[in-house]
């Protein structure tokens, strides 16, 4: 079993909703409500779900941009919140970097590409100017950009080229985990393929692990080793990517796949009839009781609106759904 790089245990993040003169909290938005996952060195875990699922909140928690209400993030087995300031600066922060969604806003428009890529080195290492400059040229080459482009400003590049610069910046400190928040969704189709191939090559070359946030299932299948389908702050299906995509168990996963599949009009009748969900995404302020998906689920049973299902192993991966529980037997805890 390759060594575990990062583990999330029962992560929770609740935002208080306040009302009245004294800012009394009258309710909680449970953005993420008990998320657990593991990332192995050199592997990619994808968090998939629609808006409001809480995938970006998980990413922010891992990047320490937001503090969790409860739960633990373990880096190489020890809890990040117990790290001293210097531990964070020397061990955690340099090994966890990120590439963000929008190439037009993830770079300071007033900085040359050379300084953008070098900033992580300038802030965290004591390399000399010459060593840093050399490292920047190396990184540019790795992401397929020419050395002379180091002196240009971000606005002189296309979307695809900017994402390459963002990847170079993320690699500057030889990180062990890169959080990719919707890395290609703002790019054109043909450019997307270039960046996805690049990310995969770099993973193989440097044994990098990725935590990918995405809503496009096809992109996820291409990138991921394991996948977690999220709905309204909870994981509803979690496991090895091939298992989840070949035998989707949870009704929501199946609906997501049906909505993303390329079914041509005339093939529609042979393949599984498309699942069209009714209703709208409920508000995270007061999620439906019991199973949070029951209000939109075609297979909802009596129990679904009362008891919240457990995330349990069924076959080769985990699912949170009463339909997949043996009737009568009390579901053993996973």
């Amino acid at each position, binding site marked *: 079993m390759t060594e575990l790089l990062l583990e999330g245990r029962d992560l929770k993040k609740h935002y208080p909703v306040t009302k009245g003169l004294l800012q009394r909290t009258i309710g909680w938005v449970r953005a993420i409500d008990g998320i657990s996952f593991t990332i192995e060195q050199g592997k990619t875990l994808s968090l998939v779900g*629609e*808006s409001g699922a809480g995938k970006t909140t998980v990413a922010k928690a891992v990047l320490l941009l937001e503090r969790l209400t409860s739960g633990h993030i373990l880096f190489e087995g020890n809890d990040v919140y117990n790290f001293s300031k210097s531990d964070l600066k020397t061990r955690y922060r340099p090994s966890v970097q990120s590439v963000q969604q929008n190439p037009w806003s993830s770079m300071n428009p007033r900085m040359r590409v050379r300084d953008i890529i070098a900033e992580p080195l300038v802030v965290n290492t004591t390399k000399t100017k010459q060593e840093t400059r050399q490292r920047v040229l190396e990184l540019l080459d790795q992401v397929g950009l020419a050395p002379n482009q180091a002196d240009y400003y971000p606005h002189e590049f*296309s979307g*695809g080229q900017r994402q390459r610069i963002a990847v170079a910046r993320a690699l500057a400190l030889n990180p062990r985990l890169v959080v990719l928040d919707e890395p290609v969704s703002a790019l*054109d*189709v*043909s*450019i*997307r*393929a*270039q960046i*996805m*191939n690049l990310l*995969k090559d770099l993973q193989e070359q440097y044994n990098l692990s990725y935590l990918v946030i995405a*809503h*496009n*299932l*096809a*992109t996820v*299948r*291409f990138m991921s080793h394991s996948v977690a389908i999220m709905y309204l702050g909870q994981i509803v299906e979690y496991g090895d*990517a*091939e298992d989840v*995509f070949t035998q989707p168990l949870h009704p929501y996963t199946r*609906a*997501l*796949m*049906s*909505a*993303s*599949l*390329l*079914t*041509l*009009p*005339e093939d529609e009748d042979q393949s599984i009839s*498309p699942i*069209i*969900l*009714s209703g*709208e*995404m409920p508000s995270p302020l007061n999620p439906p009781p019991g199973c949070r998906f029951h209000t939109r689920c075609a297979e909802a049973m009596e129990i679904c609106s009362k008891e919240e299902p457990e995330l349990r192993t069924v076959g080769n991966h985990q699912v949170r759904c009463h339909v997949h529980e043996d009737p009568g037997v009390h579901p053993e805890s996973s």
Partner: protein
Amino acid sequence: MSEVVLRVEDLRTSFFTRVGEFKAVDGVSFYVKEGETFGLVGESACGKSVTALSLLRLLPEPAGKIVGGKITLDGIDLMTLDKKEMREIRGKKISMILQDPMTSLNPVYTVGDQIGEAVRLHQQLHDNMVEDEVISALRLLRIPAPEQRVHDYPFQMSGGMRQRVVGSIAMSCRPRLLIADEPTTALDATIQAQYIALFKDIQKQTGVAIIFITHDFGVVANICHRVAVMYAGSIVETAPTSIIFKAPIHPYTSALIHSVPHLDRRDDRLYSIEGQPPSLLNLPPGCRFAPRCPEVMDICHKEQPPTVEISDGHSVSCWRVK
């Protein structure tokens, strides 16, 4: 054979700016039949949205101008109409849905007002009749509890619901042609699937012709009957949807289809087209795709390829096709 609602012949639209002339649309021709959904597909800045705005003659003044071509709607040449006559067409004969539901509705007026406005303008109905029309437009788009929703403000609705309101506005006067400019791009996958299913149903009910503009091939496969693939201001290939996906001829079309990751199987590497789309300011002579085309020949750099009709409804402009 349902009759042709809209026919566009050699449409040319340019933007005249300080730095020069942007040929946004450079000789585009297509037709749309009643009850048919015609897809306009391509990457960003390929001219699909500008084509849509040209049909409604709503190009940003004074830069944007239609410099050539003919647009006939039910036999009327839209280029010959004056401002007033064109305004009667907009919203009545041709209507449009925009991309971002968060900004398409006026934040300070209720949903009912905004739908009623179009109805009152084009159908000269008495006030209480307008109310019924508004409710029926909301019901057409299957918006729950329309009687209450009429008094809501846009910010009280989710993105998906707002896009349905925009749909109600568009369909409120039973247009002949509906242009949908990336209507589902800003929506989540499941809401998008709902919206597409809804419009397929509406098309069956009303027989409205739809021009669907998108860059997402999943959406194209689900809703379009015929598709035109655009690149740098012109159409490179037009064909029924299944041919585009199963047997594309133009190198750009097949490259695009291959570079889309598949959900039903795991690909190891994706085919990707090298280089960047050309700037519309100084378009290269000859075929626009030549600099990036894997099957490029000498002539491709010199002259623009003619459009060749291969079979009924399938035409390609590429020198490899005789």
